[in-house]
């Protein structure tokens, strides 16, 4: 579904992505782990070309994303993205946040888009807030709306960049539950998260990154119980409860 081959990227002198190769199958859920600054977000953002890269290729469903302009916008719609800071459109109601993409990009009628949005809001459990503005919702609710907004485009793959790290602890689970349900429904997902519970429950594979490289790829069980690389052992030693 997503095939990343030989991707390199620099920020000035900094080599953030070094020869990244990764293939993600249809319906697969991949959790990306690694220390801060290792390039996880950058990798995620290159997949839908929010960041350009210098060499290598990334294809989605066999199609390479074009570099600029309208064709890129069209293909980007096939890749849903959920950000750490939700990024809901502050001047639009929850319902309008979700219907904007379907109406403008997929050319759905207002009635169809509204109906779809209401179904999605029900799925993520925020039906009652449809006519409120983002600032009136809790962080957990906003993130669930952000997931619904991405799903409204009927994406082929969903990217999550630390979707729960900006949330108060008591709201983390409500978002993870929605994501777990999504994983079980067969969605192809790339998830950057340090939530071990989610990784064990939902992930098919764990990808461990350090210094712009993929250091280790394993099943969650293998990775958390017996990491092979020193970097991964070191990293897990720091984040796992003792």
């Amino acid at each position, binding site marked *: 579904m997503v095939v990343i081959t030989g991707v390199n990227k620099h920020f000035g002198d900094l080599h953030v992505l070094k020869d990244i190769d990764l293939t993600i199958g249809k319906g697969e859920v991949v959790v990306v782990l690694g220390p801060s600054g290792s390039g996880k977000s950058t990798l995620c953002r290159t997949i839908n070309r929010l960041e350009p890269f210098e060499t290598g290729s990334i294809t989605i469903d066999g199609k390479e994303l074009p570099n600029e302009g309208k064709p890129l916008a069209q293909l980007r*719609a096939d890749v849903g*993205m959920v*950000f750490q800071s939700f990024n*809901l459109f502050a001047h639009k109601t929850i319902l309008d946040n979700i219907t*904007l*993409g379907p109406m403008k990009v997929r050319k759905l009628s207002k009635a169809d888009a509204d109906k779809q949005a209401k179904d999605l809001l029900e799925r993520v459990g925020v039906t009652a807030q449809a006519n409120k503005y983002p600032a009136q919702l809790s962080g957990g609710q906003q993130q669930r709306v952000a997931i619904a907004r991405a799903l409204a*485009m009927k994406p082929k793959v969903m990217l999550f960049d630390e979707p729960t790290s900006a949330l108060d602890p008591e709201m983390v689970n409500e978002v993870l539950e929605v994501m777990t349900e999504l994983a079980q429904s067969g969605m192809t997902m790339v998830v950057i998260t340090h939530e071990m519970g989610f990784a064990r429950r939902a992930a098919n594979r764990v990808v461990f990154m350090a210094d712009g490289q993929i250091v280790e790829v394993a099943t969650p069980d293998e990775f958390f119980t017996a990491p092979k690389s020193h970097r991964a052992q070191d990293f897990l030693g720091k984040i796992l409860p003792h």
Partner: protein
Amino acid sequence: MGDLFSQYNVLGAFGITIVLTVLSAIGALVIGTFVAIMRVSPVAFLNKLGALYVNLVRNTPLTLIIVFCNIGFIVNLGMSVSNDFARNNLVWSVIGLATYHAAFVCEALRSGVNTVPTGQAEAARAIGLTFGQSLREVLLPQAFRGAITPLGNTLIALTKNTTVATAIGVAEIAGLMKTMQEDRADLMIPIFLIVAFGFVLLTLPVGLLTTKLSTKLAVKR
């Protein structure tokens, strides 16, 4: 003093001031929005062009721009828009005023765009909106709301700056004031006060309205 109003067309001159203000404001808003879009666009060339416009126009005295519109375009290049002399000057004044204040509108809008977190622009791109759609649907609506106060200030400045059109003989209120004061030196101070009061009457509501609107339409974050 009452004979001032019967002897001179004070209201008519204020009328011209209002016409100048309204037409120039519309022009400045259109040009300024356009230049602001250039300045936030991802195309480096348009960026530079927009910045050049703002820096060039904003740092040139308005009188120079207005006089240039008159001498440069009408006298030298013969670019008359109308056979009517007065009308010609009025139109070129509007063009000069709009051009000048567009630079300030652009900067006001750019400050408004900067109130929108970059994440929202990214989210807009991520759901597949084109640059134009992101601008229309996400950036500009919030930018205008965030820019209401500086836009109001620009409109107030524009209202007062219409007096510069006198320089090329537009019959607005500052020109009439000069004539009246030459004729009636005994009423120097009252004439000043009448004109000053007229401007306060024009600009005060703008200030009040923008303060009210900016709180009412503020985007909650």
